């Protein structure tokens, strides 16, 4: 589903390479995790895939179901089924959460040539999904993420994911800033969305989240590349021994 091949990325304004030949293949229905030390380029990867400004792709490709993501505007990538759950969801004063989500859902439907949801239909769907994530009606009415706690912001990201029904979901350190209960709730939300036609790329520092969202494949990323790939046991190895051993092993 998601194919990344030899991706090289530098900062637009500086001569600083961040991704240095990253390759990755995520199949439909699977959950891949990317772990790695600070500064390895994990968040850059998620931003580049989602289309954020400020990066320059100098080499390589990234495709979603065979179509090049890198040539698309961020909104086109979203309409093609890519979703990024932000590490730091932004607060947008003055834009109601509900208005925002309805605009997003209908913009994507329109881009795909599907009929737009009426406000009645939309309301019905969002109420049910919000309930599952323990998001109350008051939160839906408030401006996007304004005054939300860390946990509420992350749950709001998962609610957006549930509403937009993307095929390729990237979760960028969704566990950061969450207590155990909040993490469980978020993980349940993600697990409920697991399906044959949908894949996940879960970026995290810690193995903790992977206890709740069980990955099929674990990648270790360092210095802008995937340096090791394995099964779930690789995450446990990191948890026990840190990254040093793996880094040493690869460099040896």
């Amino acid at each position, binding site marked *: 589903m998601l194919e990344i091949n030899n991706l090289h990325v530098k900062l637009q304004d500086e001569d600083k390479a961040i991704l240095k030949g990253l390759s990755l293949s995520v199949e439909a229905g699977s959950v891949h995790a990317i772990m790695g030390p600070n500064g390895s380029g994990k968040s850059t990867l998620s931003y580049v895939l989602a289309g954020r400004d400020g990066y320059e792709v100098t080499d390589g490709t990234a495709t979603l179901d065979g179509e090049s993501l890198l040539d698309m505007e961020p909104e086109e990538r979203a309409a093609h089924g890519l979703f990024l759950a932000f590490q730091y969801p932004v607060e*947008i004063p003055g834009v109601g959460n509900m208005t925002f989500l309805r605009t997003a859902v209908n913009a994507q439907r329109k881009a795909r040539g599907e009929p737009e949801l009426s406000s009645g239909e939309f309301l019905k769907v969002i109420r049910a999904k919000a309930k599952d994530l323990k998001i109350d009606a008051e939160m839906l009415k408030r401006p996007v993420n304004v005054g939300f706690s860390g946990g509420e912001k992350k749950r709001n990201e998962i609610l957006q994911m549930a509403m937009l029904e993307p095929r390729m979901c990237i979760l960028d350190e969704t566990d950061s800033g969450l207590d155990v209960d909040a993490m469980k709730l978020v993980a349940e939300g993600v697990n409920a969305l697991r399906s044959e036609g949908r894949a996940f790329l879960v970026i995290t520092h810690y193995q903790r989240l992977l206890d709740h969202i069980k990955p099929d494949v674990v990648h270790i990323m360092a210095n802008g590349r995937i340096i090791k790939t394995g099964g779930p046991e690789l995450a446990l190895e990191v948890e026990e021994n840190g990254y040093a051993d793996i880094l040493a092993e690869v460099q040896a």
Partner: protein
Amino acid sequence: MSAAASPRAARRAARQQATAERLAGLTLPTAPAWLKPAREAALARVAELTLPDRRDEYWSYTNPEKLISAEVRPAEVFKITDEPPMYQGIDRLKIVFVDGVFSAADSDPLAGEGLEITRLAESADIHWAKDLYGTLEAMGQSPVPRPLAALNSALATDGVLIRATGKVKRPVSLIYRRAGRDSAVTLHHVVKLEKGAELTLLENGPVAARASMVIEAEVGEGAALHHVRTMGRDHERKAVTHVFARVAEKATLKSFSLSMNGRLMRNEVMVWLAGKDGTAHVAGAALGEGAFHHDDTVFVAHQAPGCESRQVFKKVLRDGAVGVFQGKILVEQAAQLTDGYQLSQSLLMDERCQFLAKPELEIYADDVKCSHGSTSGEISADHLFYLRARGVPEEEAKLLLVLAFLAEALDEIDDEDIANDMRLRLRRWLERHSH
């Protein structure tokens, strides 16, 4: 007389001469007869205060010349064909002026429950109006002179006198149409709300190629005046407006103005919170591009204890447009427990736009809460990316963010139907001007 007069004296002499020359060609309107003394007094005020120029601190951001010049540059009448007239579904008492001339055919009968209403030009010697006309304007000449308002008091050809004695349900809706391209219009309204009365006063329409509009409003004890003005879409408009409002104990004034397009606008609002526990909210949204120059100048004087005031002004500037905000909160010594708030913000859609702001607080009481903030900036790249990453196309995302930026000003309009009509027009303006 000494041969070397001081530069200050020389400047004053030059201004007096320029003012005398400008006033020399003017004749005061003769109707209504009872207004003659007030007009003459106002004209004397102008001569004494002298007309402003760019060197006045009060006019340092906006050049008053084109608002004063004897010659008025004609402007094409801008016909709006692609959207419905304002406030279409709202039941209101319509009073229509065409090029500043009252149109009986287009207006509703001047009557309403809890309402005395009459045209200035046709009015008999009404005791309450006589006490007010030019009075608040004259009071408003200090601490800063506003000679253009005095000039309006002298020259106004018409206007309405409105006295509300109860809770008036139907808004009074003043509609200013244009027919001729070289129109110059001077209108002056006097509004009095008796104890406990309520009134919504709407103003909309392009008015004239050049317009001067004054409202003097006396808001009695426990009364509430809601004033909403919109000036929209015609690109050549030049206008100077003044609202003078005296707010009594437990009374409320809310004044909102929406401006879209126009060449040169100066909107001045002067409020005295004269009785305790009064409320004054003055807010505005302005959107313009290119040669647009919009100036909001606001002065709120807290004279009594326990009053609350808010100033919320938002501007969206595009393609080299200029926005000005001069706002002051004055808290007099008696005005303990004042709650004053002032916010002025501009969204600059490109680098050529300018926002000039002079926020001021002057406080003589010791137990008060006052805050002010003024910012200008562009649309946040983080906000924009977040919306786009969820699939909202760039133009639509920008529109949402601009409307969000304006929301705090629009929230100052209490009536949801009126506020929604504004939102619709703002949205259309933004859609037309997105490029």
